């Protein structure tokens, strides 16, 4: 009687023996990371930033420190405040991404890394120089243009916004090349469009409002207009 149960039990073992292991041996192999992953280091495009400090005001923890002086010019649109200090205290950051959501100029992106351990607390502050010089691997969090379609309205309609209509469907922030400010496109959320701030797009450039499936003629979308 017990023998039968033992055979049954061993069948379960046998079944699991042939299965692929579910665990991942972390340092050697890595789990596939989705491009929307809110990673640790922030990606900041100085060319787009006007120093409005929306990110600092919207941060729930108040860990972004910005100091500006009223001089400086922005490559795409002219005048702006020059940033002197842009400190992000990573040790207190909870990576909610609200600063990225608040940025009206698409200058701040979430990063894609997660291995930023440091031995000292003072190293946990990202300074403006680090932000300038870092390799830019932005996350697609709240930046649907990087995912290759126009989010917000409907994800079933594909509207490429990257150069030459190239699809970023398989955008991989970790593996791909670093992206410059001209390559990351502009967010064009439908719900955002009624409150355009600064160089936010005009309606006709951002979304072909017709609902047709064909991609727009210049897939470049936003930045072409900004140049």
């Amino acid at each position, binding site marked *: 009687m017990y023998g039968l149960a033992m055979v049954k039990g061993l069948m379960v073992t046998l079944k699991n023996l042939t299965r692929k292991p579910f665990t991942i041996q972390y340092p050697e192999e890595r789990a596939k990371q989705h491009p*929307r992953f*809110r990673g640790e280091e922030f990606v900041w495009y100085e060319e787009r930033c006007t120093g409005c400090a929306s990110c600092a005001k919207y941060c729930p923890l108040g860990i972004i420190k910005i100091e500006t002086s009223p001089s400086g010019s922005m490559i795409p649109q002219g005048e702006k405040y020059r940033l002197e200090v842009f400190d992000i205290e990573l040790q207190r950051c*909870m990576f909610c991404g609200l600063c990225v959501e608040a940025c009206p100029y698409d200058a701040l992106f979430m990063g894609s890394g997660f291995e930023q351990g440091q031995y000292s607390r003072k190293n946990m502050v990202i300074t403006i120089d680090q932000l300038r010089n870092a390799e830019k691997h932005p996350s697609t*969090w709240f930046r649907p243009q990087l995912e290759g379609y126009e*989010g*917000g*309205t409907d994800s079933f309609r594909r509207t490429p916004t990257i150069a030459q209509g190239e699809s970023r*469907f398989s955008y991989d922030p970790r593996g791909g090349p670093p992206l410059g400010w001209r390559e990351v496109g502009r967010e064009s959320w439908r719900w955002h469009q009624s409150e355009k701030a600064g160089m936010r797009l005009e309606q006709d450039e951002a979304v072909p409002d017709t609902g047709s499936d064909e991609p727009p003629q210049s897939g470049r979308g936003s930045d072409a207009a900004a140049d």
Partner: protein
Amino acid sequence: MTIRTEPMTVNVGPQHPSTHGVFRVRITFDGEDIVEVEPVFGYLHRGTEKLAEERNYVQVVTLTDRLDYTSSMINNQAYCLAVEKLLGVEPPPRARYLRTLTAELQRIASHLIAVGFFVQELGAFGTPLMYGFRSRERILELFEMLCGARITVSYMRPGGVFADAPRDFWPALNRFLEDFEDEFAEMEQLLLENEILMIRTRGVSPIPPEVAINNSVSGPVLRASGVNWDWRKQEPYDAYDQVEFDVPIGSNWDNYDRFWVRIQEVHQSIRIIKQCIAQIEPGPVRLDLPLVLRPEAGREAYGRVEASKGELGFYLVSDGGISPYRCKIRSPSLINLTVIEHLLVGWKLADMIVSLGSIDINMGEVDR
């Protein structure tokens, strides 16, 4: 001749590996029988309600993730419903379906943990818990795809959800649903009619319906006590009035029923998710609300959902400013804990942890 014994007081927790989080119970034992129970909590108090008063309405969403960290999506949902009531707005239909869908996914994840730990406390170390975690991991991957984080999701916003699902989310969800049936069947086959589990839990610590109601117990614990009460049915929010599902009810009120109700609820959640996938239609996912919300002064609202642990409610009062004047959280875990005396007194030490596991408390929510 009988041996004279004295009652003995034992501290269980706060760092006991078998308690759920930093929870401490002072228990007076007579031999092995529990005579008196005194729960002590507050070790994980972070002042969420007070912190909410100095953040604006969207920023509070990040706080709700950290209440019951095993069901953050549902916490987001409860809070957003409260703010929407306060503002008097309705989210677009696609957002309502996305919320329902993610909340049900989160309910599955939460119940898998509840069931896994419940069985682990019976001594089944490892295997059933890992079966649960295997499937939960898939759900968390779906969440990462959806909103970039696994636990602290912050996916929902007052007026909808922050973004539509990425295109590869839907195939991934279908793959998960296909695999999950097998995986969950394996877990059910192992546990549901397990002889040892039945002996250990059948008839142990029953909560009669009147005791449950008098203690304001809600959620699976109340339904296991034979009361048909589910806010998704009583007061449908989001898309729950569009989907069909059953409410499993226990008949023996005991530990096994609380475990059984959770297993059955997972099946119902799968049903809801499948209906959501079938019914969801393209459209906007977020209302055109400003980033800083200012509800009218003097308005107050109470938004509630059926969270994985019971009724989760947010009571918000507005004074016309950018942050709530008062934010009261009715957390199911804390209120389900009030039944602990009926649950434990008179039962033995070995059943104590199991009974505690059967009400599935989460300290992040108890202490807030």
